[in-house]
């Protein structure tokens, strides 16, 4: 017999206070009597000045101790191993949820589940096909209907626990799809879950055996970590106690590898505390939060965050002279503005910039970066054909235009005297109209973006409005997103969107373990993010400064709830083609014993 939850035997410590109740002299109720004369000889051997008395044999005490022992046994979930017949094929489903990383079942719950899966697979009959499914956020088929013991073992070994919760229904649906017609199939779910595994609610065509791992876990973990830049960099850490008891720890905050702060925290069971830092030392980019506590979940004791760097966009303005545009661009501190005349453009056209704005001119060749054409002369231009001049009118926003560009435009009092007739390619969409004609268009062509402003700024009162520099700022942001990676923080295993800098040919991504991955155009999302830590991306060719992103394996909220028992196989019949050993829960016997002993205690108490 084995105990599935041996930690529950800890309740046996309650035997000490029970015995103490019999040893300690308790405060007695008072009873006035006429005289103690007749009682004196009787109590001589009962009185004592000590606060305890001799432990006398007591049937009630014996029954109470037996009840406690039976209760501890019931809570420890005794199970007896029994050989169970498996008929036909087997589908092994391994829970890949975050909680399977808990070390309360050494070395981890998941490692034990893998070992049990290999054991079951090795005991199957040679003709039985075994499928292995990883039960994660989405089920993954590790191997399908294989009779090769080595391949099955390799498939089991390739599985690893994830950072999120699991989709039980999807995993069992996948298992159901693997059942061969006419062939008996059984499924074995190796998990630490207690809910969502009732076979009756799943309507499966085959029996399901659930083998549970782990017990009550202690887990104080970091469930959230974010940082931001402002006048002062600030950070927020959320720590949650997923265990059943209060837990205390020190939270150490490191900045660029140096200890910044240490804060002691105490978190009640099933509660969360948040810690904030409002004035972090300047210059820090990498933050790391560590809990000093060691418990059953070492994975969530460390988390990372990145303080984003202000983005500097390089804008080249090609113009003879445009006071309004130069002023609007110079107002934006995130823009590094360079102004050249059309004659001087060719000299700098090869230096890397994020945006080139052509005012009144059109480049002979479209540069390989984002561009903006302001009042292009008639004729052909990249993506557009400029026609005759049209009468203008009030500027209006086109329905469906990107809100990021128009939300601060405030065009109610902006007008245009004349605008150009613009015939654009399909990828250019108008966002502003003047007198019914498209006046401003934007779009993306390949990795580069383009904007067209079809009128002279001198022919409009818009540059005199406060909305104009705001629009120019939004337009530069649109033309040069400026962030190599789509975010500064993702969950472990999630895909990282990549937006390379203009002109970047490759992107080198350095992982926390020091290895490097190379992404090439057209830069698909980066998916090799299973290892938590800080990833650094460097565009090649381009700047040497790296863009950082933090990858964390925060635990899903309340993902772990210990199962009370092991379900029995349901449905189906078995033929003698293979046998595996699975534990059968017999805690119900201990439960009945507890009930019987409680009745005996009541009877003994009444009798005495």
């Amino acid at each position: 017999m084995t105990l599935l939850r041996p930690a529950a035997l800890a309740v046996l410590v309650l035997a000490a206070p029970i015995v103490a109740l019999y040893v300690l002299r308790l405060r007695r109720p008072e009873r006035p009597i006429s005289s103690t004369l007749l009682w004196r000889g009787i109590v001589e051997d009962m009185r004592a000045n000590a606060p305890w008395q001799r432990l006398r044999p007591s049937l009630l005490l014996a029954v109470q101790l037996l009840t406690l022992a039976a209760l501890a046994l019931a809570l420890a979930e005794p199970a007896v191993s029994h050989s169970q017949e498996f008929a036909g094929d087997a589908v092994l489903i391994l829970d890949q949820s975050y909680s399977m990383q808990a070390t309360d079942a050494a070395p981890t719950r998941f490692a034990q589940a893998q070992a049990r899966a290999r054991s079951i697979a090795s005991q199957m009959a040679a003709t039985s096909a075994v499928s292995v499914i990883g039960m994660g956020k989405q089920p993954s088929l590790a191997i399908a209907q294989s009779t090769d013991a080595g391949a099955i073992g390799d498939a089991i070994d390739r599985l690893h626990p994830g950072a999120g919760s699991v989709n039980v229904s999807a995993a069992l649906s996948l298992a159901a799809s693997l059942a061969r017609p006419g062939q008996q199939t059984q499924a074995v779910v190796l998990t630490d879950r207690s809910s969502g595994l009732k076979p009756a609610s799943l309507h499966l065509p085959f029996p399901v055996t659930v083998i549970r791992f782990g017990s009550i876990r202690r887990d104080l973990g970091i469930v959230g970590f974010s940082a931001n830049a402002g006048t002062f960099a600030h950070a927020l850490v959320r720590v949650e106690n997923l265990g059943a008891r209060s837990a205390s720890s020190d939270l150490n905050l490191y900045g660029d590898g140096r200890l910044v702060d240490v804060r002691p925290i105490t978190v009640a069971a099933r509660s969360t505390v948040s810690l904030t830092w409002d004035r972090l030392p300047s210059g820090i980019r990498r933050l790391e939060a560590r809990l000093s506590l060691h418990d059953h979940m070492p994975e969530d004791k460390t988390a990372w965050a990145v303080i984003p760097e202000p983005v500097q966009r390089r804008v080249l303005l090609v113009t003879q002279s445009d006071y309004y545009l130069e002023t609007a661009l110079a107002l934006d501190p995130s823009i590094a503005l360079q102004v050249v005349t059309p004659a001087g453009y060719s000299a700098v056209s090869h230096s890397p910039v994020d945006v080139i704005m052509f005012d009144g001119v059109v480049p002979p060749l479209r540069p390989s970066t984002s561009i903006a054409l302001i009042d292009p002369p008639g004729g052909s231009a990249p993506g557009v054909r400029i026609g005759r001049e049209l009468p203008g009118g009030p500027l209006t926003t086109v329905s469906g235009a990107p809100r990021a560009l128009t939300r601060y435009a405030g065009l109610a009092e902006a007008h245009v005297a004349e605008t150009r007739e613009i015939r654009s390619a399909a990828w250019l969409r108008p966002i502003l109209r003047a007198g019914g004609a498209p006046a401003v268009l934007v779009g993306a062509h390949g990795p580069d973006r383009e904007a067209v402003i079809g009128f002279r700024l001198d022919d409009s009162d818009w540059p005199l409005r406060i909305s104009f520099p705001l629009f120019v700022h939004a337009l530069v942001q649109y033309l040069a997103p400026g962030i190599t990676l789509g975010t500064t923080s993702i969950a472990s295993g999630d895909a990282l969107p990549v937006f390379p800098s203009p002109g970047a040919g490759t992107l080198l991504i350095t992982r926390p373990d020091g290895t490097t991955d190379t992404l090439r155009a057209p830069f698909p999302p980066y998916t090799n993010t299973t290892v938590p830590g800080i990833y650094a991306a460097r565009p090649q060719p381009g700047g040497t400064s790296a863009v950082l992103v933090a990858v964390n394996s925060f635990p899903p909220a309340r993902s772990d709830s210990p199962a009370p028992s092991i379900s029995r196989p349901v449905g189906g019949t078995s033929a003698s083609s293979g046998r595996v050993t699975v534990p059968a829960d017999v805690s119900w016997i201990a439960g009945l014993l507890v009930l019987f002993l409680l009745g005996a205690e009541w009877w003994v108490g009444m009798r005495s």
Partner: protein
Amino acid sequence: MPDLEPDLLRKLERVTLSGRWQVAGSAPGPRRSVHHGSSPEFADFRNYVEGDDLRRVDWNAYARLDQLFLRLHAGEEMGNLSLLLDRSRSMHAGRPLKSHTAARIAAALVYVGLRSHDRVTLAGWSGHIDRVVPPQAGIRSLRLLWDCIEQILSRPGGPTDFAALGAFRAPGPGTVIVVSDFLSETDMRRGLQALAARGDRVAAIQVLAPDELDPDFSGDWQLIDVENDNTLDVTVASRSIRRYRANLTAHTEELQSICRRAGISFLRFSSDAALDLELLPALLTAGVVQ
């Protein structure tokens, strides 16, 4: 005022205090005395006490000696009944209260005494005799004496001291009855023997509560002695109950032995006794009444 059942009163009307002892009284009565009486035959003088018949004062002696003396004659004399009521704290314990039952017993004896044309004296005592009602005679004194019984026993006194009984002086020869629970560590032998040594007929009536005769509680208790506030921690179980009963039996036997040697009649009543059924047979058996 003690409450006696009419049926008990009718039964008590048929008895008188026992006359086995010759009495010397200062008033005529139905009982034959070997000492003094109102017959023409002079017997003796004695000092006048309050309540004596002034017609029997020897005025000649008063003229000569300036002191009141009573002339005593051999013949029919009025007897004396003295009731010594224990008013200690312990009498106010038990359910029903022992003092309540003691009051009813005393009321019944007062009724018998007055019906027997005896003079009845009441005295309350605990540490010492501190409540004395002078001798009263005649059935018209019944209400007064019953009220006095109520007053004596309504307020608990101090701890019991049986030596105080030796200080009691009866107004004349007769019957002295002590009503108590006799649960005391003081010298009962000395007090009772002092009473009996004066030639009076003495009876001891013990009143105990039912839970003193047969304790009906169990478990862990802290017992508090109501007389001296001493405490005892005790675990009451069947074994300790048996030992308590043995102690009670030994205590009772010792009390009975003292009474027997001093010629004192001994009676015991439970405070929940049906006095209308049990009192008169017990008094008759003990020879207190006839």
